[in-house]
């Protein structure tokens, strides 16, 4: 699909979504607001997995680091939201680098395992220092983004749109091509003169930046930061499923996958325990029978 066509479709979808608040209830808006933040988590993850070829099992390490840094600054230092968000995403980039620099030296599944351990560590630290962090219960925030459902909705939609545009543009750019080469065949990429580690690190930073940013925004929407929403392994798993479901290497598909997961989970919630089972089964079926994911499959059909 050509870039102009992608752009046109994306623009129509965004405009349509922006009009939603005039037609649907606050409950639906709240749900979508959450879904859009998840969309950014998933898109950031896809940049790393789909392009750099590195499986990050711990997206919630980056998300949580950003969220908790921002939250604590707000709670204890009463820093304004924008300052907290910036410093939060910065913390997530630095934390990400500290993790990635040694981890990228390992090949194969070891990178992924390191990221997994990082999540567990972060979660433990939060629980251990519960006096400071609020522990399992969470940390109350004095400030919130907005108390109006519509404003919150528009903020998150705008945030997802801008992040999506940047991440998508990056993936299609010259550096995106180098990144794909580094992910697919690091030896060849090196022999062509590309510093593979540098490019992968840069991808990791970008991914960390958007994950941390989205994590920080999310808690200021919810008014509280808790491990269950931004740190738990389960959150990371959802992000990964969303990205794979939506279509690896498509960036935008990851956002679709995230919206699907959150909305489907909510619709099925009255069914109780069984709802998680149904959503997981659907996800499994899509992954098994349409490994390209929603968008990958769609694009493939279109190309024929």
């Amino acid at each position, binding site marked *: 699909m050509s870039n102009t066509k992608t752009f046109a479709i994306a623009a129509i979808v965004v405009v349509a979504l922006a009009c939603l608040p005039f037609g649907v209830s606050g409950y639906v808006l709240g749900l979508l607001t959450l879904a859009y933040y998840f969309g950014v988590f998933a898109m950031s993850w896809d940049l790393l997995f789909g392009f750099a070829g590195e499986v990050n099992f711990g997206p919630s390490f980056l998300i949580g680091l950003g969220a908790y840094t921002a939250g604590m600054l707000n709670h204890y230092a009463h820093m304004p939201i924008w300052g907290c968000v910036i410093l939060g995403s910065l913390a997530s980039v630095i934390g990400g680098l500290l993790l990635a620099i040694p981890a990228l030296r390992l090949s194969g599944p070891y990178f992924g395992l390191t990221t997994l351990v990082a999540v567990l560590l972060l979660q433990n630290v939060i629980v251990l220092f519960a006096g400071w962090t609020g522990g399992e219960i969470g940390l109350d925030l004095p400030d919130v983004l907005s108390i109006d459902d519509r404003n919150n909705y528009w903020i998150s939609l705008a945030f997802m749109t801008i992040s999506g545009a940047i991440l998508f543009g990056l993936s299609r750019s010259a550096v995106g091509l180098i990144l794909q*080469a580094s992910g697919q065949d690091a030896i060849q990429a090196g022999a*062509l003169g590309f510093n593979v580690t540098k490019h992968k690190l840069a991808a990791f930073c970008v991914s960390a930046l958007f994950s941390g940013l989205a994590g920080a925004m999310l808690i200021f929407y919810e008014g509280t930061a808790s491990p269950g929403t931004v740190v738990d392994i389960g959150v990371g798993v959802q992000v990964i499923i969303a990205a794979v479901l939506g279509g690896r290497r498509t960036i935008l598909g990851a956002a679709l996958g995230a919206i699907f997961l959150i909305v489907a989970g909510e619709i099925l919630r009255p069914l109780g325990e069984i709802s998680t089972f149904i959503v997981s089964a659907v996800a499994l079926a899509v992954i098994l029978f349409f490994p390209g994911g929603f968008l990958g499959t769609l694009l493939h059909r279109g190309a024929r």
Partner: protein
Amino acid sequence: MADLLEVSGLTKRFGGLVAVKDMHLRVGAGEILGLIGPNGSGKSTVMKLIMGIEKPNAGSVRIGGVEVAGMPSHRIARMGVGIVFQHSRPLHRQTVLENIKLALLPDSLLQLFAASHIDDRAREIAARVHLDHVMDRLPGTLPFADLRRLELARAIARNPKVVLVDEPFAGLTSGEVADFSALIASFRAEGHAVLLVDHNVKSVAALVDRALAMYLGEFIAEGTADAVMKDETVRRVYLGGAIQTAARTPLEANNSAPLLEVEDVSVFYGKAQALQNVSLHVGAREFVSVVGLNGAGKTTLFNAISGLVPSTGKIRFDGHDLTGRTGAQIARAGIVQCPESRELFGEMSVRENLDLGGQHLPRDVSARQLEWLLELFPILKSRHSQAARTLSGGEQQMLAIARALMMQPRLLILDEPTLGLAPVILEQLSKALENLRQNTEITVLLGEQNVTFALPHADRVYVLEHAHFIWEGSPERFAVEAGAQFL
């Protein structure tokens, strides 16, 4: 003037194995040095050491007088070294044009958009290696030779001073080899220093200015190509003797029911027809060669017989219809294919790969078979605990053939078995096939474009061209009637 590429005292150990030992070589501007040696002698390793893909344990590599040993490969690449790998490794999701453009991009994080001149330059390079008509195709859809061209295009994209070319001729037809030779000669004309490795001795000798031979990681001879080929050690360890045509006793089984019958078989890949109403029969204990240029459809035919691609038409083996059987069922019925792509278990050791092949045999039979195969390919014995992924190109080929033989097939399908093998191994393989023919009940279907190897081992020959057979007959008549484009 200093030579563009100077290597001295270069040594590389992999665990206990010394793959390269105290090597030295120099290549000047406008010169082609041919590096020859048997499989596993360390040629590709020398190239990887120069490129910085492997780190040397000792020794020096100088590019234009600057020491680069130990540097990471991206820096060596930017010092002006380019490599054509033994196996093509393009980006599969990108088009040919994008693959070439990639090689032209600067190593910068800030350059988001490729400068427009990069597009033009990529097209220029594509035209130079004759890829201009396939710019928008994906590598997966290209014929073998074009993939090698793409590899060449990427290696020369940055106009490197030193070009390392690993087995450019492997798997190419004589016409394509001539084409590639001309291209490589043009690098010389432009003043590049070229280091060339290939087992196609004739073409190497015709192209290079000097040759250097190595064996077991060590230097053995250097000089003009002629002188090196005449060297006593080179003859013994590398060239071997000529492949003999053994006198063939006509097979008494010839008039019995054929073992394999292929009738009217067609295969489509999407819209493209890869095989068009092909019919062939192979009698029990018969050796049949299918010769054809790259892309003629040999591999497709073999895959159809082995049940690996869906086909229309009828395929019968030993009187049983194979329609609807899975690849695994067909393999159990006794048809074993040694694929061109080798399909080894990369992380498993040589021994484990072989044991897997012999799994269904009784213990003592598989032990005997193993012993025989290790005698046939002694190098596999000395590498038995090494991961298959790290074997040299030729060693992998030997392992693939050995694993297929471990299965004691009734019908053995060999797809381009000569790919990447040193002359001396070809001679051994040739003897082994003769040995099988004399002493076992095996039937062989051999796909080759190397007719000097295919003919001596054939009772009958088919010629495949553009998805169908254009000729069938005895090897003796082949030279007269059909050989023109192959010989």
